[in-house]
């Protein structure tokens, strides 16, 4: 069946990528069971099983979306070096499995809130490449209208609460969102993501205590990429077992480079949170780039370490091996898919480059609620005096 579809594709007729892709996997929902790479380590709870229910469609979907995320981040790297993206840019390549596994386990009613390494999470939540690149380059079509930049992506209709610059500040916010979900009986949960550096912030423990006290459906996810900017985890934390730091709150340690382990853990966490209250997930993951584009990423870790992780634990390679071993596609087809993804990304960048910058009047919008009538001054109260719209 796959073969016949292939031959019709190689006709050389130009087809929109998505249509070709749908044709590829449209009816293949054969269930597949995948074993996670490692067993889960649990704290104050029973770990979920290592066998993850999936399907061929999901497997290919994982590959496709992760390759898209990877390509998007690499393209952002080039754009930054070409000075089309200014300011700060924190790239997620290497950590894609966390974004994709989480999405697979939840719905768009469940909320996600994260820190500044948010491009791929935004994409996972349903954001488009055009919105991503426009926002990165500060254009009007960006998801935050060009006013946020790399660190401030939001998507309200998918319950994606962003995109935060101040380390750790998003976790109490996430617990507040969880409270609202419980109050409104939404049967939904909130995933509050933070890093190993942020794990030492006091406000995290405050939020955790509150969530545990009031049984909020909050899931605190520590994306442990082992470096808080340039500081290795063992130099910043007395106990780098972040999944245990909740003390009275259960925790689970997950191989963050295995998308299926992430999916299983998030599913488990969601069920737990809805029934019993907060839980901590520690995703053992890795970022190939430095902390941000200003950080070469090689002064505090060896190149051998980076290439070692890339060879042994790369999340996309893992999925690729699974796809090939389950005969869902051939090497060539996957390569073609990657080529189409590359083109899709290039097209999105070209489209975003054509997009205009925000109007100068946008400098004053959304400081307060519209129509509040506050005045904003410039020099002498004469030259620039705008009533904030």
């Amino acid at each position, binding site marked *: 069946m796959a073969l016949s579809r292939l031959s019709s594709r190689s006709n050389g007729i130009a087809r929109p990528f998505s249509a070709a892709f749908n044709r590829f996997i449209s009816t293949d929902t054969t269930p597949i069971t995948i074993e996670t790479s490692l067993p889960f380590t649990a704290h104050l709870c029973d770990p979920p099983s290592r066998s993850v229910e999936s399907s061929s469609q999901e497997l290919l979907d994982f590959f496709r979306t992760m390759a898209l995320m990877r390509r998007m981040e690499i393209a952002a790297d080039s754009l930054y070096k070409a000075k089309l993206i200014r300011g700060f840019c924190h790239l997620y390549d290497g950590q894609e499995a966390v974004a994709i596994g989480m999405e697979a386990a939840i719905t768009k009613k469940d909320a996600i809130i994260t820190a500044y390494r948010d491009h791929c999470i935004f994409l996972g939540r349903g954001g488009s490449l055009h919105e991503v690149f426009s926002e990165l380059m500060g254009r009007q079509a960006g998801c935050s209208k060009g*006013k946020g930049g790399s660190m401030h992506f939001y998507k309200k209709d998918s319950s994606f609460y962003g995109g935060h*610059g*101040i*380390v*750790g500040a998003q976790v109490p916010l996430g617990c507040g969102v969880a409270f609202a979900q419980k109050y409104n009986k939404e049967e939904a949960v909130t995933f509050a993501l933070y890093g190993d550096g942020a794990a030492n912030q*006091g406000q995290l423990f405050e939020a955790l205590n509150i969530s545990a006290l009031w049984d909020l459906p909050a899931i605190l996810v520590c994306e442990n990429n082992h470096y808080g*900017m*340039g500081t290795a985890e063992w130099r910043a934390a007395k106990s780098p077992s972040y999944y245990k730091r909740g003390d009275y709150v259960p925790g689970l340690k997950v191989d963050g480079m295995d998308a299926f382990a992430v999916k299983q853990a998030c599913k488990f966490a969601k069920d737990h949170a809805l029934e019993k209250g907060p839980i901590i997930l520690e995703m053992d993951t890795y970022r190939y780039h430095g902390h941000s584009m200003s950080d070469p990423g090689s002064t505090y870790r060896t190149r051998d370490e980076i290439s070692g992780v890339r060879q042994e634990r790369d999340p996309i390679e893992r999925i690729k091996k699974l796809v090939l071993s389950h005969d869902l596609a051939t090497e060539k087809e996957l390569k073609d898919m990657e080529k189409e993804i590359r083109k899709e990304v290039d097209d999105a960048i070209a489209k975003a480059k054509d997009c205009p910058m925000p109007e100068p009047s946008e400098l004053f919008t959304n400081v307060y609620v519209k129509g509040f009538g506050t005045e904003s001054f410039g*020099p*002498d109260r004469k030259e620039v005096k705008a009533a904030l719209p």
Partner: protein
Amino acid sequence: MAALLGRSCRKLGFLSSGHGARRTVSTETGKSLNLYAAINQALHIALDSDPRSYVFGEDVGFGGVFRCTTGLAERFGKNRVFNTPLCEQGIVGFGIGLAAMGNRAIVEIQFADYIYPAFDQIVNEAAKFRYRSGNQFNCGGLTIRAPYGAVGHGGHYHSQSPEAFFCHVPGIKVVIPRSPREAKGLLLSCIRDPNPVVFFEPKWLYRQAVEEVPEHDYTIPLSEAEVIREGNDITLVGWGAQLTIMEQACLEAEKEGISCELIDLKTLLPWDKETVEASVKKTGRLLISHEAPITGGFGAEISATILERCFLKLEAPVSRVCGLDTPFPLVFEPFYMPTKNKILDAIKTTVNY
């Protein structure tokens, strides 16, 4: 584009002696250093001269994200120069405790934008310690250093100027240097001052400002403003990186026959009211400029005080050329900033009032 213009304005060489400027520090020559190197030298001297002084903060061990603490850990050891985890509130609280035991705690907050978790410790603990303990305890040995101010592409959380929040707190001092030579002397004064001090360093100038800095140990007195350019028609008051912009505006104004007097406040709390008052009584006009948003900025305090003291001598309303009342924007930075042209316009309006 406007962004490029903004940056090139900052690149001009620094305020040189001459132009009838009155210098409070010896004009002996030293090595040509930029701001981060000057601050680094000050820290080396501080740690060398007092064995009970310590430097700590996020990433200071390898030299810091702006290289201000280069070489300190190697020279003085990891027990005196060390990294902390990512917790500003904890870092400052820890520093207060250390200072309370008679040590000099030199705390680095990585960006002034991140100082807010520590705001409670600074305002409620550090500022009031001596007062509420009836002078039994104090944390005078505490100095908090933080890079502040716009840098061209910093966006909301790497460009803020929070000095106004701290100027509202009796019990601490707030100091902002304008150049490498000033920074070294002022920082050494702050570290040795028996009161807790918040020292904001203009991050734009870390590499851009280069000046001859004497190599020996010297201090510049706190709470003394300096007239760095004399004039008769209007007094301009500023601090930090903004002074470069103001000086360019003064030069342009001079071409149109307006003689400007430029004052560097240096210490914002407690500030040198006498110097500014004497100047305004001479010129009759005042213009204040700072990057922070205009409403509630420190310019308001200067304006109100000068009005009280010089009302009958004023020829025009006090002018404030400041950042706009919005969060520090990302792409709109050139519009937000108090640029040379905005200051020039305000000078002319005030003089022709």
